[in-house]
């Protein structure tokens, strides 16, 4: 099978190269020194040195989500592995293909509470799709190939390979990728044709259909997004997208209603509430989307397309379940629609669109304009105007700025919007932007951030400077953990416990201290100039945008409320101000 035995660390590098890995994000340490030694002796794999292992995983996520390739991570044992746990959990929740190599103490020391020992496979078992402990160098190459197979097949996710140091020094034979087939893991990719027919039948009879697309479309690849767009256009039905799905349908398409869910648009949420046939594609009926389950889209038949059978009927009972890859299912549906010349009833559709246009007139994203203070929404509108004709990748941190970015920035294609949706990880955006910039050197990569989130992985400015990555950090600085403050205002009687950050750094000087560019906008009139300057910067750049400190993010479906009970902003004349129920309070 192979020519001559190689050292474990070299086998590992060879296996990664054979899997098409070009970049690995990592941080060295004692247990992985043999791997770093092997990396030093070759030039096929590029290593990006981060400043914290959590950031290594987020950078790999940013790389994976913006390129469609597997993100690869290398960290040492003990604290290296435990620091990676947040990133791994993030990748699991958002279904991002990651292979994370962790160092481990030598096999004879495992279980001895050795220096920098942690039970990595035990700790990462619930936060990975699968994990391995390599005990014998003869298994090493096979396990690497299997890990890539598992990470990318079925619903993607993170896979950990724990590598004891003695295994990295031992000699063994190489196993090429072709020689490895997985024993048990065979996820269903092709849909059941009978289910496709049932779905078409429902769509044909629909009077108020709605497409509800999610991250599964993006994960399936750009082809799936094209097919989804074609299906929406063929049926001329309205479509909404989840936070994870933005870009799966061009935002400029008139059939796009905006994002659905807790901070989704009025028209998207009411369409979800009022539709009679819902076609969920690669979306998982997350609690941020459904709101109160018992009142969720009460009068619709639901078609659910998902590659993961465990997503089906987990939260919401559906009528037609189609297990398969989003791209394959959409292809089969389009073919069946065309073959049967099936289309929803034209007259009913016209009435449905009239209703939707009524909802749209509510103009739910309207906000109070100001000449004195920068409204965060306005800052994002100016940012979008400046970047919309470029190849722009947006990452975010987590909180109000993230929701405003989802509402006010528009995505014409998939893989250009990278946000921590499932886990909601503050500190995600900057490392993800670094990974995205590594994978897309020509793109404009912007982390839309809050001043609180950005401090959670600010050390990565150093990484960005080291690799001369012109990532932009667009900080909407309101001095508050804005979403916490908003909930405290709306749900906790305005008792702003610990949500104000005193002693914030001067972000301009902070950027400069790292060797980047720092800019600041304090008035609306300065925004365009500052944004232009930011886009010109050829170094990492932080823009400190001082925004209205008490602006809230609307629309909002309060916890425990239904889609038709959403709160609209102060600008809305007919906005209901329903107090939050006690049941709702306990929900996050």
């Amino acid at each position, binding site marked *: 099978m192979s020519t001559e035995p190689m050292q474990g660390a070299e086998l590992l590098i060879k296996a990664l190269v054979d899997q098409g890995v070009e970049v690995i994000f990592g941080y060295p340490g004692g247990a992985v020194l043999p791997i770093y030694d092997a990396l030093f002796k070759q030039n096929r794999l590029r290593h990006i040195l981060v400043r914290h292992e959590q950031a290594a995983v987020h950078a790999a996520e940013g790389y994976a989500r913006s390129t469609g390739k597997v993100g690869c991570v290398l960290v040492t044992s003990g604290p290296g592995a435990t620091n990676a746990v947040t990133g791994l959990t993030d990748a699991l929740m958002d279904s991002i293909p990651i292979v994370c190599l962790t160092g481990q103490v030598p096999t004879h020391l495992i279980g001895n509470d050795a220096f920098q020992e942690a039970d990595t*496979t*035990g700790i990462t*078992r*619930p936060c990975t*799709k*699968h*994990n391995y*402990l390599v005990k014998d160098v003869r298994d090493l190459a096979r396990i690497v190939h299997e890990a890539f197979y*598992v990470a990318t097949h*079925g*619903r993607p996710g993170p896979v950990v390979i724990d590598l004891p140091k003695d295994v990295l020094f031992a000699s063994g034979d190489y196993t090429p990728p072709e020689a490895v087939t*997985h*024993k*048990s*893991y065979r*996820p269903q990719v092709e849909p059941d044709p009978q289910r496709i027919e049932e779905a078409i039948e429902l769509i044909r009879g629909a009077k108020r259909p709605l497409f509800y697309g999610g991250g599964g479309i993006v994960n399936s690849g750009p082809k799936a997004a094209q097919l989804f767009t074609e299906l929406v256009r063929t049926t001329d039905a309205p479509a909404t997208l989840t936070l994870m799905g933005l870009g799966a349908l061009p935002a400029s398409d008139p059939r796009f209603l905006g994002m659905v869910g807790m901070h989704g648009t009025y028209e998207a949420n009411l369409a979800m509430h009022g539709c009679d046939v819902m076609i969920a594609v690669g979306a998982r009926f997350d609690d941020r989307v459904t709101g109160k389950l018992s009142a969720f889209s009460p009068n619709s038949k639901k078609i659910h397309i998902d590659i*993961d*059978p*465990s997503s*089906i*009927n*987990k939260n919401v*009972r559906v009528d037609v379940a189609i297990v398969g890859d989003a791209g394959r299912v959409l292809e089969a549906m389009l073919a069946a629609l065309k073959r049967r010349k099936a289309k929803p009833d034209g007259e009913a559709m016209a009435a449905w669109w009239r209703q939707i246009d009524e909802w749209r007139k509510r103009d739910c994203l309207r906000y109070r304009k100001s000449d004195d203070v920068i409204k965060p929404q306005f800052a994002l509108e100016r940012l979008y105007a400046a970047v919309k004709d470029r190849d722009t990748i947006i990452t975010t941190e987590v909180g109000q700025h993230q929701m405003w970015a989802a509402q006010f920035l528009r995505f014409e294609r998939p893989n250009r919007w990278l946000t921590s949706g499932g886990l909601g990880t503050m500190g995600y955006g900057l490392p993800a932007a670094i990974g995205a910039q590594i994978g897309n050197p020509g793109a404009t990569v912007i982390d839309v951030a809050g001043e609180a989130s950005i401090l959670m992985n600010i050390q990565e400015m150093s990484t960005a400077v080291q690799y001369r990555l012109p990532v932009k950090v667009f900080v909407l600085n309101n001095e508050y953990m804005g979403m916490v403050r908003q909930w405290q205002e709306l749900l906790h009687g305005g008792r702003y416990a610990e949500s104000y950050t005193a002693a914030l750094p001067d972000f301009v000087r902070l950027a400069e201290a790292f060797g980047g560019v720092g800019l600041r906008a304090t008035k609306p009139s300065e925004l365009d100039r500052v944004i232009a300057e930011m886009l010109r910067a050829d170094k990492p750049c932080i823009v400190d945008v001082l925004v209205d400190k008490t602006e809230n993010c609307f629309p909002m479906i309060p916890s425990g409320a239904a889609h038709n009970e959403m709160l609209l902003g102060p600008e809305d004349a007919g906005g209901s101000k329903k107090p939050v129920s006690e049941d709702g309070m306990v929900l996050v």
Partner: protein
Amino acid sequence: MSEAIERHTIAVLVDNEPGILARVVGLFSGRGYNIESLTVAETDPANNLSRITLVTSGTRMIIEQIKAQLSRLVPVHGVHDLTDEGPHVERELALIKVAGTGEKRIESLRLADIFRAKVVDSTTESFIFEITGSTEKLNAFVKLMEPLGLVDVSRTGVVAIARGPRGFS
């Protein structure tokens, strides 16, 4: 769909590798599902496969989730809901220690005979009975032994297999 709580016996064929039991148990604890019993042993040494039999309870929706969650574990080769898939045989084995003398000792031996429990160890003041049967039968026997000097019980949990000529596929 019914909200009634159902009891299901599920057979899972898995790779016999370290951590597999932790994956299954972690899935149940992490998602808040019940495990009433769980047994595991290697059943196909040539292919390095083990069979897990577990008994769980929940609403129909939860049972379906449990099966879907088990199926997506990477080292799982197959999941069968024996309760749903037709008639099957369930057995459990217990070792039951009863200590005592005189009339109670004789009574325990008499009841053991009725239940077809075997005496596998005896001293002048104790017996260990081995009994095989359904969970209900074992429960009944244990209950009867309580007033007769029951001191210790060890049970295997349910093992189960479908009736008829077909194997696990």
